[in-house]
């Protein structure tokens, strides 16, 4: 059996192992992998997500057990320090010696720390490993405790630097980005697109300093500032260096492999180094005189090395490597592909720029106008996949190439169908999966749905950017085979949401068991139970108390479960209007039960930290002060945000507060496919941000403008205009129709924005249904909404008045004790749950 040693267990080292064991010939080899970090390989590309959940496991490429199952020996926390090419052995830092037949170097790179005076001071970090992040978190907490307005700078305005900027911002530090060049992301963006990106980043609170060379880092033992010129100083309490990478090539140097002048181990197109038994892949490999700092070429290199070692010597690294990238940086789309900076001698550029919306699009077209050479997208990269495909496959472009980037007009965009792509079009560049492979596994019957396609081909398992295209291709291929593409709910029902809705409505079912016994299989699960509960609520206007065991946790306990299993209570404050007496009552209740208190982003006051047992006690007090607890959970109406409108405002055109309250009270009991928020602004200054809501009203001369389908969640959307200058009565009529139409036809967990986007016929069709009553269902919809509105009952009052229901709110059924596992820690004069490990 031949022995392979892989040095380095990063993303590329892991990919080598994965591709190797997937090969039938791999049984003739034994693989040993060395990693110097304490944990198995993880997804460094998504490192900044660690800040959101601090869940290192979620970033893992594969758990430790995966290595065992595949017969790979994984040695972590052990650095390889020497290679003896003569004896074909390696030596580790603890003086252990291992011999190899093939050696694969995948040691990657280390952050480059420029030789600035004072760089060794406390509070200076690099951004590369989970341990780096943990160090930053701990230090940030320390300085923030001393100084709540602490600042952090990031040295380097490249890709990683901007990610680091978001990270320090999320830690609650004032973020500053310091870049040596005169633009951000100098390797990917031109000056104009950098300026657009800068405006956007500044609008979300990042401070950008360009053309700054750092002379020294100030402070005694810990950093207090950065000095650029004599009188040019930036006071900061922490610094993260993200000034590029340097290959970790010291092993290559000491054992005499051929090296590049500026570092990196030289490889040929077989990924072989100057020693034929040693391969180098990823960010230490110098190929074409280049170090490729992207994960996709690293994965390709791993694939070539695997093939070469098992004897498939025809598999070579291509001469041209696609350096296109698309990312979501701090919520901003940024993409560049092909040749982003093209000299005028090679072609023409077409540029679309809209600074008010932080949009920039540039495409570079050949002189004959026939092919696409490259481009840059900032602010909206939804066209990236298609543009990238056109570029990669040399596809023909429209006579007027501007159509490729101009906003879609009536009749749709300039793009064709995904099915028009050639079979060799690469859809997933991380895993090198072509359109032909995706369609192939479906046509051969190997894959029956999207999940199968992903597990058969691994498409979409890298950065995930290609997922929408993979889904479109899967659906289109299934359709072309005459297979109905069905969105079923889960293994228990072969039905969609709409079909279940109709069945429950027609048969009048009242319990989950009636539905599953007659139309499903098994016992149900956490997907179908809450869905059926929601449909029954929509149809019969029952509260969640009726059959509480099929409700999701929050609906079952009528409050939001939070990080440590305690709950938050969010009293409804319709339209955000509240009397001083009620404000005082809220404060007193919060104080009595020692609750953490916060004003939310949507005209409410959050009360956190209530135990199960305290919930009914708190509700009772709230109810006695005229409150009702609010739906801050569940798929229901949350709030209708209002500005102060003509009640007090000197610009107000109409009474936004009164109308907001009326609407919030009207729809407060409804259950929907997703949560819904509304907004009412008294004038076009839009202080209630109504266009960022599922429905929004703006008072104009002559009535209200009604907008629908805003918010969009992870994919933010502005609401679109449904009707202009209508009166209160018409607003309610249209909203009843709109909401009911959405509740009846959207998929589970589909927001209004996504529902509207996929509505065939688009906004025009929606207007025909809602305003012109094209389908003749307007009256039905209105009546149905009226029934729901009339049947509203306060479910918290229901719960506290019924001793049987009250049983739900004891932590134990056999003891009055509270959960003894709860730990709170102090924070800014209030409390919070102890952080998770």
């Amino acid at each position, binding site marked *: 059996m031949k022995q392979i040693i892989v040095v380095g267990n990063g993303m590329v080292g892991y990919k080598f192992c994965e591709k190797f064991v997937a090969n039938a010939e791999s049984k003739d080899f034994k693989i040993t992998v060395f990693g110097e970090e304490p944990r198995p390989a993880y997804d460094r590309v998504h490192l900044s997500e660690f800040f959101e959940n601090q869940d290192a496991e979620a970033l893992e490429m594969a758990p430790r057990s995966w290595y065992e199952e595949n017969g790979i020996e994984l040695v972590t926390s052990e650095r390889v320090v020497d290679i003896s090419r003569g004896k074909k052995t390696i030596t580790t830092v603890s003086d252990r010696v291992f011999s190899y037949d093939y050696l694969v170097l995948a040691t990657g790179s280390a952050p480059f720390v420029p030789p600035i005076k004072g760089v060794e001071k406390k509070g200076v970090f690099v951004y590369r490993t989970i341990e780096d992040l943990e160090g930053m978190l701990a230090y940030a907490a320390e300085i923030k405790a001393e100084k709540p307005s602490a600042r952090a700078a990031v040295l380097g305005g490249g890709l990683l630097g901007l990610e680091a900027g978001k990270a320090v911002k999320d830690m609650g530090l004032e973020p500053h980005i310091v870049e040596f060049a005169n633009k951000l992301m100098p390797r990917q963006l031109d000056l104009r697109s950098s300026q657009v990106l800068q405006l956007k980043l500044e609008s979300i609170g990042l401070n950008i300093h360009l053309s700054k060379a750092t002379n020294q880092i100030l402070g005694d033992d810990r950093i207090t500032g950065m000095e650029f010129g004599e009188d040019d100083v930036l006071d900061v309490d922490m610094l993260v260096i993200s000034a590029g990478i340097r290959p970790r090539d010291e092993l290559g140097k000491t054992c005499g492999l051929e090296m590049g002048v500026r570092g990196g181990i030289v490889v040929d197109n077989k990924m072989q180094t100057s020693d034929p038994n040693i391969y180098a892949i990823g960010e230490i490999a110098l190929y074409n005189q280049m170090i490729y700092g992207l994960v996709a070429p690293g994965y390709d290199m791993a694939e070539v090395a695997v093939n070469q070692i098992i004897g498939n010597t025809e598999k070579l690294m291509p001469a041209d490597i696609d350096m296109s990238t698309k990312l979501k940086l701090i919520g901003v789309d940024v993409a560049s592909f092909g040749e982003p900076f093209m000299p005028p001698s090679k072609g023409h550029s077409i540029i679309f720029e809209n600074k008010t919306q932080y949009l920039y699009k540039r495409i570079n077209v050949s002189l004959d106008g026939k092919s696409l050479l490259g481009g840059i997208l900032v602010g909206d990269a939804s066209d990236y996949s298609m543009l990238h495909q056109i570029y990669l496959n040399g596809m023909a472009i429209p006579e007027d190439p501007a159509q490729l980037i101009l906003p879609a007009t009536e009749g749709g965009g300039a793009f064709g169908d995904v099915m028009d792509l050639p079979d060799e079009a690469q859809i997933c560049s991380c895993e090198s999966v072509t359109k032909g492979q995706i369609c192939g596994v479906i046509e051969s019957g190997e894959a029956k749905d999207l999940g199968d396609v992903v597990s058969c081909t691994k498409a979409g398992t890298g950065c995930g950017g290609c997922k929408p295209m993979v889904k479109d291709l899967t659906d289109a291929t299934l359709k072309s085979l005459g297979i109905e593409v069905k969105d079923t709910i889960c293994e228990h029902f072969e039905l969609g949401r709409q079909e279940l809705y109709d069945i429950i409505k027609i048969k009048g079912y009242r319990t989950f068991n009636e539905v599953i016994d007659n139309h499903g299989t098994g016992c149900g*699960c956490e997907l179908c139970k809450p869905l059926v509960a929601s449909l029954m609520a929509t149809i019969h206007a029952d509260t969640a108390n009726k059959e509480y065991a099929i409700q999701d946790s929050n609906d079952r306990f009528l409050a939001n479960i939070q990080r440590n299993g305690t709950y938050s209570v969010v009293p409804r404050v319709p339209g955000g209007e509240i009397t001083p007496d009620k404000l005082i009552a809220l404060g007193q209740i919060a104080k009595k039960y020692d609750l953490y208190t916060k004003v939310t982003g949507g005209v409410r006051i959050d009360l956190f930290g209530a135990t199960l047992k305290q919930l009914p006690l708190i509700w009772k007090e709230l109810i006695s002060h005229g409150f009702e607890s609010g739906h801050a959970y569940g798929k229901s109406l949350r709030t209708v945000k209002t500005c102060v409108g003509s009640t007090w405002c000197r610009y107000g055109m109409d009474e936004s507060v009164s109308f907001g309250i009326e609407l919030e009270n009207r729809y407060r009991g409804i259950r929907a496919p997703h949560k819904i928020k509304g907004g009412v602004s008294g004038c076009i200054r839009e202080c209630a941000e109504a266009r960022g809501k599922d429905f929004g009203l703006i008072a104009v001369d002559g009535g209200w403008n009604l907008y629908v389908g805003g918010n969009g969640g992870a994919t933010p959307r502005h609401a679109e205009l449904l009707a202009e200058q209508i009166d209160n009565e018409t607003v309610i009529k249209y909203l009843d129709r709109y909401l009911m139409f959405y509740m009846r036809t959207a998929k589970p967990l589909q927001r209004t924005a996504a529902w509207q986007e996929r509505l065939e016929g688009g906004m025009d069709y929606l207007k025909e249904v809602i305003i012109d009553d094209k389908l003749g269902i307007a009256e039905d919809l209105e009546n149905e909404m009226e029934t729901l509105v009339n049947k509203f009952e306060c479910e918290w009052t229901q719960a506290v008045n019924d001793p049987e229901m009250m049983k739900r709110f004891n932590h134990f059924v056999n003891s009055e004790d509270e*959960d003894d596992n709860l730990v709170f820690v102090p924070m800014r004069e209030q409390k919070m749950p102890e952080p998770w490990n």
Partner: protein
Amino acid sequence: MELVLDKYATTKVEDVKVWFKAASVNDFPQDGGACVKYKDKQIAVFNFAKMDKWYACQNVCPHKMEMVLSRGMIGDDKGIPKVACPLHKKTFSLENGENLNGDMDAIATYPVKIEGENVYIGFSE
């Protein structure tokens, strides 16, 4: 944190030394769960009426170590009875504690018996 988990170990019927009388069958919702205190342990007990069975397991979810499993929704995964944690929807088999949608360690399960109106949970210590 591991200390929390150390208290819980799967117990088989043949190893039961103590049948602890926990509560009345009426204290548990149909097709739902509630938490029982036994010494310093928190045990989630489920009345799986649809299958006409009762199950018990540790109340602590091994993902984030919070005492919440009794508040999770129950159901089945291809016929295997399971509970979904209310915090992040990690699901566990109620038969043998196996994590059905991930690779976390199995949770501890305990035998349950019903005599008359009463629910008993079996412990080996």
